[in-house]
């Protein structure tokens, strides 16, 4: 989730632009010692019905000079997820692309581990992770899987509904007590073709276009669709910004959307929104400790589908449809 990085990042970038414009003075580049090898793990526990059990993926990588470190990780790397009650589940190494979209050994140095958790790892329970390497390094952390929740609008979990073009609606769900935030993503298909008549630049638009929505705190259980999605991409490239402006008035005919809402725990939020400002790059707040750093986050995820079109008995009209504000 990018909850801490949107507006603050923009403000910081604007400040730096203002600042660097008159100075325009680069300092001489000097060579420094390489960084230490630091082990990193990005572990996520996901509870996403109808899957019968919570699943975990762990992507193990390291600081950029740590290829040697990574080579020594497998096959003796041991990663266990321990559910409440003590049931242990060892994760197995799987191809990196299971963890990372479009991964390849050249571009994505790191190793991926995955597996299902014990039956007792359910929403509201604590899961602990233990990672040990053959050379004795270890990482540990714990997460509490957010409480279960249900999407209640514009249609129930796992269902599909239809909306007329150029309308807005509310994606709503029940509370997941204790969740720190509800990140949401909508994958918009057919958007390039739908918007192309408005501007030839849309030829360059991603399709599907994945846009991000966010509700912060466990009590904020609503995001207006699609106008409140893409909030961090408003400051990205020209064509995406233009597309998001079009979405302020609803979806165009020919677009369909899959909307996923997640209840996210503390660790997930801390890692994604980042910490102190530093000019050298983004800083993250970790939840794994030991001989390295990283995150053990957890989410409960629900999905609905929205299509633009006329309702049918199989795909009813979405609830809460409204006109965009004038």
């Amino acid at each position, binding site marked *: 989730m990018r*909850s*801490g*990085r949107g*507006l603050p*990042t923009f*403000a910081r970038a604007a*400040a730096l632009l*203002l*600042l660097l414009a*008159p*100075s325009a003075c680069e*300092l001489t*580049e000097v060579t*420094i010692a*390489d*960084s*230490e090898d630091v082990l990193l793990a*990005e572990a996520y526990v*996901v509870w996403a019905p109808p899957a019968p059990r919570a699943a975990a*993926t762990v992507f193990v990588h*390291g600081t*950029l*000079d740590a290829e040697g470190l990574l080579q020594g990780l497998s096959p003796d790397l041991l990663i266990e997820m321990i559910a409440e009650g003590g049931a242990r589940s060892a994760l197995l190494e799987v191809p990196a*692309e299971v*963890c*990372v*979209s479009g991964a390849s050994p050249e571009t994505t140095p*790191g190793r991926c581990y995955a597996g299902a958790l014990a039956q007792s790892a359910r929403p509201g329970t604590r899961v602990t992770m233990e990672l040990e390497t053959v050379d004795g390094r270890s990482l540990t952390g714990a997460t509490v899987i957010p409480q279960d929740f249900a999407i209640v609008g514009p249609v129930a979990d796992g269902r599909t509904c239809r909306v007329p073009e150029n309308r807005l609606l509310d994606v709503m769900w029940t509370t997941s007590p204790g969740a720190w935030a509800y990140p*949401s*993503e909508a*994958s918009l298909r057919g958007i390039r073709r739908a918007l192309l008549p408005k501007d030839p630049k849309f030829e360059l638009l991603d399709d*599907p276009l*994945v846009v991000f*929505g*966010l509700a*912060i705190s466990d009590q904020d259980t609503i*995001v207006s669709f699609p*106008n409140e*999605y893409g*909030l*961090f*991409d408003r400051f*990205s490239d*020209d064509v995406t*910004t233009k597309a*998001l402006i079009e979405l302020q008035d609803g979806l165009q005919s020919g677009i369909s959307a*899959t909307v*996923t809402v*997640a209840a996210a725990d503390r660790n997930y939020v801390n890692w*994604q929104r980042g*910490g*102190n*400002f*530093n000019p*050298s790059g983004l*800083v993250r*707040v970790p*939840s794994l*400790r030991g001989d390295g*750093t990283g995150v053990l986050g957890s989410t409960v995820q629900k999905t609905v589908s929205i299509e633009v079109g006329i309702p049918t008995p199989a795909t009813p009209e979405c609830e809460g449809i409204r006109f965009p504000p004038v």
Partner: protein
Amino acid sequence: MFAASVQVRVPGRDVPIRTTETDRLGYFLVEDLSDGTYVLGVGRLGFVSMDVEVTIRSAARTDVVVRLEAAPIELEGVSVEAARSRERVRFEEEAGITSSELAGRDIKLIPGFAESDPLRAVEVLPGVISTSDFSAAFNVRGGSADQNLILLDGVPIFNPFHLAGFFSVFNADMLSRVELLAGGFPAEFGGRVSSVLDIESDAGTGDWRFNGGVSLLAARLAVGGGAPRAFNEKLGLSTTRWRISGRRSYFDKILKPAFNFPYHLSDLQGVVEAWMQGGSKLTVSGYAGADVVAFTELDEDDFPLKVDWDWGNRVIGANWTGPRPDGGSLEVRTGFSRFNTGLRFPDFDDVVFQSRIDLFSNGIDLESRPARHWTVKTGLKADRLVYRNRFASGGADFAGGANNGWLFGGYAQATWRDQRKWVVEAGVRADRWHPADGGAALELAPRVAVKRFLGAGNNTAVKFAVGRYSQFLHSVRDEELPIGIDIWVLSGRRAPHVVSNQVQAGVEGYLADGWFASVETYARSFDGVVTNNLAENPNDDVDDLLPGDGFSVGVDLFVRKSGPGASGWLAVSLLKAERTFPDFQSGLDPAPDLTYSPIFDRRVDIDLVVRRPLGWGVEGGFRWNLGTGLPYTRAVGSYAYYQPQLAEGGRLELGGAVDDEYAILLGPRNGDRYPTYHRLDISFRKPMRRSWGTLVPYLDVLNVYNRKNVLFYFFEYIQEPSTRSGVSMFPILPSIGIEVAF
């Protein structure tokens, strides 16, 4: 007349035996003179100085009325010793306070960014450091920037900066003096714990006067005059003076034919001073300024995202001061101050980026002299504070808060002066803060100061002061960013109030031939300071600020030479500051405490300021600043930045929404330091007198030898070998301008 210098001399001798200054009502008091005849020399810039012979008899009060006539003002080349007398008066009459004063002429000869800037000029005073060339904000004796109370004619002004901190809102043409009180404040001062910067508008002499100027930044004009006699008589006034000024940047206008420059600033400032027949005075002053960044006016192809951003201040204040028969005074004041900023995205109306703070301030002070050697001052104040901040987008509230409250304050202080041998001050201040959201707080702040004069002529003194100070608001601006806008919050449920215990001791003295020297040492504690909690729990609406504490110790040395010819000063400030906050960056719950050096922990800061006539009527100003390196947090490693996705398979994706493909690991918080900072600035001013007035072209050059002082380091581990690059602060930066006066 306010701030006129008064010297008491023995007839036939030039050296004064007493020096004082008229107070805000034009009154002055000289005690402990033996019977005899004396000469009173009274003077003020813009008026003809007068000598009056006075005969003193024991056990009798002698009243003297001196009326000065206005004289044509000479803007340049005039020795302005009168402007120093406030400091001298404080030296003679106050026990503990640390005061440094800059007259308008000082400010104009301290090279500025495009034009003279009173707040940047303050940086050259002892105990004051600036963390960046790009910001006019300053830190005093280990205090945060938000712990400086900046007063414009007695009314607090929040965030008084243009261009996100590049320079201040104060137009040097409109100011008569700037005084920094860096410590040892008596009980009458409240509201901030680190310093008071008192900026006074210049109401002029009552004659028509025009001042204008054009710099690379802006064009400005100030007009002053007086009310007609008939007007004064009708209202029962003896005299009325006023000045008003406007300033505006012009790049957006002159570049308009070529392209839309998206930024401009504007200021409007005015002051009216009316003297009643009975000797009382009413002053009304105001300021309004705005910065406007309008990206909506840019070509869509150049900048597709439409953004408007503005910020600015509104300040208005009124002050009535009346004399009392015992030589004291009664002062009643009221004022309103607002800072407001807003960011708007016309294409995305769900974006709210707003911050506002309002202060409605009222106060009354009574000064009386109940017995010889004794001055008693009491006062009450009632301030109403309101703030509202909100940062939201896409239906999500990222940060914000609102609160309001009343701050009631009262104080009593007594000063005992014994024939210029001792000055003893004792007082207590009580502040009660009633926030709407949060529990009330009462802070009792006792303050004691003692000064002992030494040596022949009593021109040297040792002094000691101890006191407790409190503050009920904070700025949550990240001070590690070199520029930015203060976002204010009030103490209450979300933030504690600040309590600072301070002790200081020093020696100071007026030496021969215009030399003054002082050395002071101090120690300060700060409880209740806050920092942003970037790991805050969104379900907990009171954990977005983390309370902490801090301390500072230091020594300030100040040596000044005034008088004709070369003048200037050397300020050496030694400081060690620390802050302790819960380390949210650890990710632990609860977060362990972390003690570190704050960004303003500059261990040694040296300022050398010299102004000197250079021949051909040119006045030269020279400022050299050296500061040991400021702390920073070093990146010690870098790793690929992965962003978890929910849609499209729910896998990690390289790079985030802002396309940063690498994140960093940090070393110890502020565990490294940048290299030593040093910079030489020079200023040349050439007053040219013409029959219609005076023309002053000037040239300022900042960073004459183009020192590349480090603003930021960038550590890059994504290449082989790893490198450290960065950007510097100001390069050599010449600027020219011209001023006119008639």
